[in-house]
């Protein structure tokens, strides 16, 4: 219960602080913050799948990119209204996730095999984006993607995009909170800890995992569609391997077991990106790689995770029961 309150307070502070951002930050940095917020949603989606469900997705950018491209193609080529396109982007991606989940999870594919297959999916997505030029714009991508306008709500321009992303972040946080703190969340945790046992207790683990995948993919796709609407373009880079790895670093650095960790990871690494790219313009991947390696080796629980572990040790010194000694 205490954890929920702490988490809720942090989130509330975050959202309120963000609302004041446009008054404090100039338009250029506002677009950077908008990007961070959108990526925050992706990080949450990945953390949900990885930290909660224990399934590692190597190609999460594929779903982000899928949402972005579907939105772009539907608004630009099929000329559907922006709101409908965004909805369809999410729905389509969820359907894809359900198909993938059914195909893989119900087929017994787990762990490393699942991870490699998600990587293969990202590669497939990248190939399709690059070669299906009439639809996806090929290597050049699609420029001039319309912003989101739903009736009187106009989310175009830097300010509109910013508020759209904050709204989506709030929605994502609400959904993940609902899931995590519910019975379903406990089941996910049980599956992560020991799937066999969970199966023996009568839960259809494949079904739950597929549902979790759908949730994760839906959030990532929503973030992608919002990104497309906010920046008004899509490009194959949004489906790339580098972005997928960056997404993993956000969650790994921040802390894979905490939503707050995922958000912290995004903020930290994105800001680091901006700072470093002025000094070392072409070596950003080096920093990502090094950071990643060091964090996985030394701080596997991420910053927030390690912080929580340390806090527990320092502020509650008592006889450590044998069962806990291994953490």
């Amino acid at each position, binding site marked *: 219960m205490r954890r929920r309150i702490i988490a809720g307070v942090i989130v509330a502070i975050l959202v309120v602080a963000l609302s004041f951002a446009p008054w404090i930050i100039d338009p250029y940095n506002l677009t950077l913050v908008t990007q961070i917020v959108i990526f925050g949603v992706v990080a949450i989606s990945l953390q949900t799948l990885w930290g909660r469900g224990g399934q*590692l997705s*190597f190609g999460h950018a594929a779903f982000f990119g899928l949402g972005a491209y579907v939105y772009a193609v539907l608004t630009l080529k099929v000329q559907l209204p922006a709101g409908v396109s965004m909805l369809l982007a999410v729905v389509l991606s969820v359907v894809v996730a359900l198909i993938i989940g059914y*195909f*893989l999870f119900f*087929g*017994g*594919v787990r*762990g*490393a*095999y699942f*991870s*490699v*297959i998600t*990587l*293969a*999916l990202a*590669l*497939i997505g990248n*190939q*399709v984006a*690059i*070669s299906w030029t009439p639809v996806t714009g090929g290597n050049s991508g699609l420029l001039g993607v319309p912003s989101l306008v739903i009736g009187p709500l106009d989310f175009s321009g830097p300010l509109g995009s910013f508020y759209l992303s904050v709204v989506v972040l709030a929605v994502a946080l609400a959904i993940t909170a609902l899931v995590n703190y519910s019975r379903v969340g406990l089941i996910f945790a049980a599956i992560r800890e020991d799937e066999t046992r969970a199966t023996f207790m009568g839960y259809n683990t494949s079904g739950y995992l597929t549902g979790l995948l759908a949730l994760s993919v839906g959030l990532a796709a929503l973030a992608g569609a919002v990104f497309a609407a906010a920046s008004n373009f899509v490009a194959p880079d949004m489906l790339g*391997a*580098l972005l997928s*790895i960056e997404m*993993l*670093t956000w969650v*790994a650095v921040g802390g894979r077991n905490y939503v707050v960790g995922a958000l912290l990871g995004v903020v930290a690494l994105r800001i680091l990106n901006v700072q470093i790219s002025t000094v070392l313009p*072409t*070596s950003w*991947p*080096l920093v*990502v*790689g*090094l*950071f*990643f*390696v060091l964090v*996985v*080796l030394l701080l*596997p629980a991420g910053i927030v995770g390690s912080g929580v572990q340390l806090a527990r040790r320092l502020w509650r010194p008592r006889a450590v029961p044998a069962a806990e000694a291994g953490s």
Partner: protein
Amino acid sequence: MDVIVSLLLNAAFLVSVVALVALGLGVIYGLLGVINMAHGEFVALGAYAAFLVTSSGVPYWLALILAPLLGMGAGMALQGAILSRLVSRPLDAILVTLGLSLVFQQILQAVFGAVPRTVANPTPGAIDILGATFPIFRLVAILIAVAVIVATILFLARSEFGIVVRAILQNREAASVNGVNAARYSVWAFGLGAALAAIAGALIAPSTNVIPLMGATYLAPAFVAVILGGAGRPSGVLVGVAFMAGLEVLLAPYIGATVARAGVLVLAIIAIRLRPDGLVREKKDRFA
């Protein structure tokens, strides 16, 4: 007729190179359970070794010795210094190799620059095979690749090293109880896997440009081939490679190269799903 011959020859070239890469990956995965996401960078390392050799005026063939040596060194360092600490955390090991692949690419770029490098063709000219024109060097490369693959399979099947490796594969704890230093063998095995990838890189270098990111092209097909073939069994790996790379090259002229690659990946995913233990049925008591 010459169309078919030309297709087959080109397929043979690409398949043999990818087979080398996949074999190395398979050794690593089969023995250590580590999916080495940095494997492509060993390929690039081998290609740059070839560049170093030829740009210093040394005959190209020395690259076929330098490349595996460099690859082996890098692989052994990687396993010994970093991955050995993650034996109990296989998923984290994969993540670390992912990060390291970025780091290696950047190191290669820092040392050699982002500009493409060329490796001079040691056997210029093309010959006529059944109506199809085929570069002599590609023919030589195929022969060398096949020789290395056969040698490696024999080595793993017959030598003491191979026997011990098989023992560790089957039961790590029992092997170490019997006095086998699993950690040291892991280091050597990783070195072997990396060396194979490096040779592939050296062989492909004269036909293409050497850029820091070149390894990525060979990683995906090699990966899927390994998983299709079943963990760590060389014959399975070869079947997987033939399936992946061969199918891609044969389909490409008819449906476009990128569609072919995407399609083959989809087929591979289906195959993994239907036969998670690999395409080749495992025969008991036989390792080859």
